């Protein structure tokens, strides 16, 4: 089959078995791959009522039909499982090389079920698949695990891709992720905890010979160049040239930088975190993903301050935001250390920073005292105390055990006024690293999402195609709802093709051309868009059955509070919330009370079987 290996690798850890399962073209046309395929497996095989840690839960890790091509951003992976924060469906992606290597090893995806009694890791190579003992890797962080596996199997840096869990995943921290290729992360909704519950430490894929076949390789080459040319200009070409390293100062100016757990929107030291300063200062070097020409991903060495000499990956914008302004500390070198520490321990930076910021606010206001925190003085910006707290969380030591449940559960356990200081959604998932009081569409998206993180992404190249308001007032409730509802599915297309958003910008038209050049399916843009919407609706039905009902689609009190300063202080979203949801449900074709997609919505998307 063109564009596909025609196989999924099945792994049953309870029985210690691996086997091949055939993939047919009809299934791939309906779901594309990646997220779509993972959602199909979860829907068909995992009872929505079980707990995320039940061995019957599956862990899906997949590439897509463009995986292994030279289209930039297509060596990414998508992970689908029942996640630990929401106990609902999760779709979370990581960039790097694994997606290409996986397909070159002969598989479109891996589906792991069951749970092992001893620690294992999965090794894929040209000659086959092995479940290997991982007992010697237990306790190692994600970078150490990557190094150790490559060393014991005899692979050099880029000849193998390893994604693993760290101590946090081993200890079932509800916001543990999987990390690989030097800090790339599929981090959301506790997918690392799911892997930990199965005692699977890592996936390792060798860079095997590329035997994939595509219908029109020449066309794929042209489209690869086209994607790169768009990336050079979209948003002023900033991602191509700078990654996300220059986002922070602008975010502060526009009022969507998270500062001091949303207590303020002002961060006068913002320019210290500007990539134009940091990259030359910290000797940043490009470390690109497979087939990507951009300067998005870099490694760096801290050269000033108390952490001079520390080497790690350059934090993404959300990591700078998390470990600078969100905890109100102003040393970029310390932010590099904190960011990499969280990655190495194997936790989601977003949730970790909401937890730490909340603890600091509780400490300042006396709701948590030094003796409650195992002797840590959690004052704003205290880097050393934060490093200790993060370790306590990853190893579930002391109060870290409570915090390992995530900020929603920890705040509800502490109770009182402290619940109102925590940033979370009613479903329990984490917002991304922004102050969404200045980005309403993302607050709406994060709160209604069924992925455990973002469900859509309003920045699409083809605005007219997705019927986006253009121009758009980002504080107009009607336009925000239209943007969210109308563009629903665009991200699922990217995540099912498994193309990095920073190279695709959800350019559905060019993606469709690439899909057809890879597979020969000759799908129309409309058909591809329908796949995206089909996946969203399937996720919705699954999560409703899992108990994630519409009454939980509320931002926490702090998350939707009114900013006290900054450029958006006069723009509270709360008064508009219920009407926005009403309109959103109407546009999505969902029943407002039950949350279920209406029969006509399901029929339109080829999901007639779900109509009851």
């Amino acid at each position, binding site marked *: 089959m063109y564009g596909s290996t025609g196989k999924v690798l099945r792994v049953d850890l309870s029985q210690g078995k691996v086997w091949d399962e055939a993939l047919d073209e009809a299934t791939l046309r309906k779901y594309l791959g990646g997220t779509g395929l993972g959602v199909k497996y979860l829907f068909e095989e995992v009872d929505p009522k079980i707990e995320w840690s039940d061995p019957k839960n599956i862990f899906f890790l997949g590439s897509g039909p463009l995986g292994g091509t030279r289209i930039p951003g297509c060596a990414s992976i998508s992970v689908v499982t029942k996640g630990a924060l929401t106990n609902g469906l999760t779709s979370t992606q990581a960039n790097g090389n694994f997606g290409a290597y996986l397909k070159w090893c002969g598989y479109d995806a891996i589906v792991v079920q069951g749970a092992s009694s001893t620690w294992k890791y999965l090794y894929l190579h040209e000659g086959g698949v092995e479940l290997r003992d991982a007992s010697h890797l237990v306790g190692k962080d994600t970078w150490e695990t990557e190094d150790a596996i490559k060393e014991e199997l005899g692979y050099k840096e880029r000849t193998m891709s390893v994604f693993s869990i760290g101590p946090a995943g081993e200890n079932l921290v509800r916001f543990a992720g999987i990390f690989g290729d030097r800090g790339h992360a599929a981090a959301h909704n506790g997918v690392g905890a799911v892997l930990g519950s199965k005692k699977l430490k890592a996936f390792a894929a060798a860079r095997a010979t590329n035997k994939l076949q595509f219908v029109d390789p020449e066309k794929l080459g042209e489209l690869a160049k086209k994607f790169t040319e768009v990336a050079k200009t979209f*948003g*002023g070409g*900033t*991602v191509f*040239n*700078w990654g*996300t390293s*220059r*986002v*922070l*100062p*602008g975010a502060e*100016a*526009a*009022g969507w930088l998270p500062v001091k757990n949303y207590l303020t929107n002002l961060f006068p030291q913002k*320019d210290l975190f*500007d*990539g*134009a*300063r940091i990259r030359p200062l910290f000797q940043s070097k490009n470390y690109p993903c497979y087939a990507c020409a951009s300067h998005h991903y870099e490694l760096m060495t801290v050269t000033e301050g108390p952490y001079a000499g520390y080497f790690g990956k350059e934090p*993404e*914008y*959300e990591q700078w*935001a998390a470990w600078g302004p969100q905890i109100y500390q102003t040393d970029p070198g310390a932010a590099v250390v904190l960011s990499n520490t969280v990655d190495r321990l194997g936790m989601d930076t977003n949730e970790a920073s909401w937890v730490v910021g909340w603890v600091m606010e509780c400490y300042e206001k006396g709701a948590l005292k030094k003796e409650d925190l195992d002797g840590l003085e959690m004052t704003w910006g205290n880097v050393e105390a934060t490093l200790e707290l993060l370790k306590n969380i990853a190893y579930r030591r002391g109060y870290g055990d409570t915090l390992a449940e995530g900020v929603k559960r920890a705040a509800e356990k502490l109770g009182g006024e402290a619940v109102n200081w925590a940033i979370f959604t009613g479903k329990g998932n984490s917002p*991304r*690293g922004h102050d969404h009081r*200045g*980005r309403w569409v*993302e607050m709406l998206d994060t709160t209604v999402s069924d992925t455990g993180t973002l469900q859509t992404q*309003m*920045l699409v190249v083809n*605005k007219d195609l997705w019927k986006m308001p*253009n*121009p*758009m*007032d*980002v*504080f*107009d409730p009607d336009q925000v709802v239209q943007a969210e509802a109308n563009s629903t599915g665009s991200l699922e297309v990217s995540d099912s093709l498994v193309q990095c958003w*920073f190279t695709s910008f959800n350019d559905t038209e060019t993606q469709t051309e690439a899909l057809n050049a890879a597979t020969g399916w000759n799908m129309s843009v409309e058909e591809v868009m329908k796949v995206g919407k089909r996946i969203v609706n399937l996720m919705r039905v699954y999560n409703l059955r899992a108990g994630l009902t519409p009454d939980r689609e509320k931002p926490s009190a702090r998350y939707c509070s009114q900013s006290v300063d*900054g*450029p*958006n202080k*006069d*723009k509270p979203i709360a008064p508009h919330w219920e009407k926005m949801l009403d309109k959103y449900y109407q546009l999505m074709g969902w029943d407002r009370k039950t949350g279920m997609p209406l029969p006509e919505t399901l029929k339109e998307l080829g999901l007639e079987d779900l109509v009851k």
Partner: protein
Amino acid sequence: MDLTTRKTKEGQAIKVTVEVMSWLKEDFGHQGWDKLVIEETVSPGTSVMDLLRVIADKHPRFGQKAFAKNQDFLDYCAVIRNGTFLSALADLNTELQDGDNIKLSPGFYGG
């Protein structure tokens, strides 16, 4: 468009400052991370959008990107006047006042 030094019967020319943020500074030929603040003198009655077009004329790279065909200006460039985010195009018709501070920040989300 020349609005920069003209005085009108209604009043004196007014002075405003424009602070350019983050990578938008590259459009103005400014490579560093330090502050870029431009001072402009315009006629009374000049709107924020008028000012932006004046700036675009003076800095063609910015003008070509921000006012490109099929480009939603606010997607490219967020405008903050005296600490308040102007989120709708209509807001850009607001008349400038003497001493106004305008911040231009990338409209592009990310990360």
